[in-house]
Each structure stands twice: as structure tokens, then as C-alpha cells.
């Protein structure tokens, strides 16, 4: 897959979202072109490069659940009130995130990616911020369709 970190249009959308939503972290996970693996392809505001090595587990954690269900998800005070174990949420642990809001990216009506914004303190994402993330996800879907999932 083309390295997303090298695609300026993708970077621009993520950076704009990070500023507009005033969040500390933005991550973009996508399913590989071949095989079922989902990996974090781009991150901004990251503390380390662990995200590059993480393969998202299907149905586990925030990204895995979103890919398997196609629904949005918010965590406002990690690790309180989560489903499953703390270790089911590797990106939250790796980036020391306490709150996150994530939405699916659809390609041919199938969820194949996740756009996640996060903060390192407990936080409830307002409807306005949620709308920003939703809008950015739509833009990313379009860009990725043109550049990768042609």
C-alpha cells in the first residue's frame, strides 16, 4: 500500500482536524490491500512510533470494534467503563490516551478504516467535534478511494 505518511492531502486533513478539534492525537488505521490485517498508517501528535508496529485485532479495542461493527465509538475516561480488558486497547495504552472518539471509513459500503481523535485526559467530545471527525472521515474516504482503493 502507498505510504499514507507520504500523501500530503491525507496529512492535511488529519492536521486540520487536530487543530480544529483541539485534540492531542489523530490516527488513521486502514485495512491492507491484501489480507485482513488492519494497521495504523498515519498518526499525528504521537508520543512514540509504537503505532507503526501495531496490527489492529479484529473486533478488539476501539479500532477493531469499529471495523467489525461499522459503528462510531467514544471513550471518555479510559480505562473506566470499557468493554473487555485494558490490554484490548493497544493504541490507548501506546499513546497514553484517556479519551477518544473514532469513526469508520467505508469503502464499497464496507468498513475498512478508522479515523480516531484522542486526548490524554478524560474528555467528552462535543457534538460539534464529533461532526468535525465525521466530516473529515468523509473527505478521507474520498481521497483514499482516489489514491489507494481505486
Amino acid at each position: 500500500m502507498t505510504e499514507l505518511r507520504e500523501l500530503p492531502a491525507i496529512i492535511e486533513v488529519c492536521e486540520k482536524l487536530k487543530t480544529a478539534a483541539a485534540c492531542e492525537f489523530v490516527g488513521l488505521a486502514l485495512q491492507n490491500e491484501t489480507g485482513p490485517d488492519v494497521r495504523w498508517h498515519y498518526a499525528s501528535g504521537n508520543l512514540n512510533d509504537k503505532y507503526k508496529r501495531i496490527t489492529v485485532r479484529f473486533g478488539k479495542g476501539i479500532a477493531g470494534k469499529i471495523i467489525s461493527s461499522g459503528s462510531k465509538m467514544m471513550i471518555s475516561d479510559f480505562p473506566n467503563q470499557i468493554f473487555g480488558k485494558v490490554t484490548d486497547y493497544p493504541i490507548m495504552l501506546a499513546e497514553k490516551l484517556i479519551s477518544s472518539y473514532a469513526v469508520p471509513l467505508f469503502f464499497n459500503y464496507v468498513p475498512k478504516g478508522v479515523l480516531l481523535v484522542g486526548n490524554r485526559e478524560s474528555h467528552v467530545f462535543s457534538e460539534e467535534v464529533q461532526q468535525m471527525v465525521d466530516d473529515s472521515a468523509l473527505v478521507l474516504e474520498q481521497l483514499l478511494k482516489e489514491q489507494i482503493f481505486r
Partner: protein
Amino acid sequence: MDLQKSKQQISSYIIDTQEEEIKRIAHELHEGVGQNLYSILTGLQFVESGTKEPQMKNYLHEMTILIEKTIQEIRLLSVELHPPALTTLGLLPAVKSYSKLYTSTFGILVDLESFGVEKPIPEKRRIAVFRVCQEAFMNIAKYADSSNIKVNFIWKEEELTITIRDFGSGFEPESLNLQHTSGLSAMKERMLHTGGRCTISSKIGEGTLIELSLPLNVE
């Protein structure tokens, strides 16, 4: 003294029973559910190859990807519960295999080295040491804020020493929460059951060192 011995025996019995059950579930997942899903996958691929209608072909393709993901997750769950390498190949290969899974799950690099000649360890003790290593790895992912781990296996004639070092935030034992303290106590207790010991040392800002030693000449 007798009471303590009896308590230890009960504790060992509970652990052994749990391990047997975990092994059974892991085997069922891998050989039962996993194999059935694999049959469904090959069936779907066969139907997909014989379908000409593009929309239906696309739908079938998405279905095969979903089944592939499910098979992968079943396999990972099974390996996480009870790695087959632990029974077939031994402790060191099992920890090596677990390290790879750990890096792809948490993004934490594991540098594992073994010194000396590997020796056979009875299965119950092998499982116990593996579980302690697993707990140490999990604690690092949860609390240590470290990007890499250094693991050494040192095989001597009469003893195996395993050191697990992280380079994260470290901790002061007094400041630990109950869950973390219980986890560390369970590691020590489990090593005691094997006839070995577990020592934990940590310094704020310098990381944590866990040292496990297991006598090799005990029947």
C-alpha cells in the same frame, strides 16, 4: 506448617485445573471452530470463482475477507490462551513466538536472547513460568510506558534464569494500586509453586527488572 502445605496443594490444584481447561478451550477453538471456518472459507472462495455477476462476486469477496479476519482472530485467541509451541517445542520457542504476537499487538519491541544450552522442563512448570513471563509483558504494556523490552534466558546446569527488563517509567512499590500489586504478588506466588523465585526491582525513571529463577534438577 501442615495447613500451609495443604493451602499450597489446593492452590496448585486450582491452577492446574484452570490450565487444563484453558488448554482444552484453546484446542477446541483452533481445531474445532477454526477448522470449520476454514472449510466455510474454501467453500466461499469456490463459489466466488464460479460467480460471474460482478456485484455478487464483490459481495462474496467481502465475505471471504470477513471469514479470514475471523479465522485470524480465532487463531490468535487460541494462541493467546495456550500457545501450541509451549507443549510441542518448549518454553523458549513459546516465549519467542509470544514476543512476536506481543510486538504486533502493542508495538513494543522485544529483544530476546538465550545463553547456554536449553534444557527440558516438565510441562506444569513450563506453563507456570510462561504465565509469569506473560504477566510481566502485560504489566509493561499497561504501566511501563516503554518502547522496548530486553529478555534474557540464561541456562545453567542446575538453574534457568530469565530476566525481563523494560526501560520505562519504573515505580515505587508503595505507590502501586491494588490490581498492580496483586499481579506482582501472583507472579511471585506462581514461581514459588514451581520451586523457583521471582524478584522485582524498579526505580522511577529507569524502568523495571524482573528476575525469575527456576531450578532445573527438580522432579
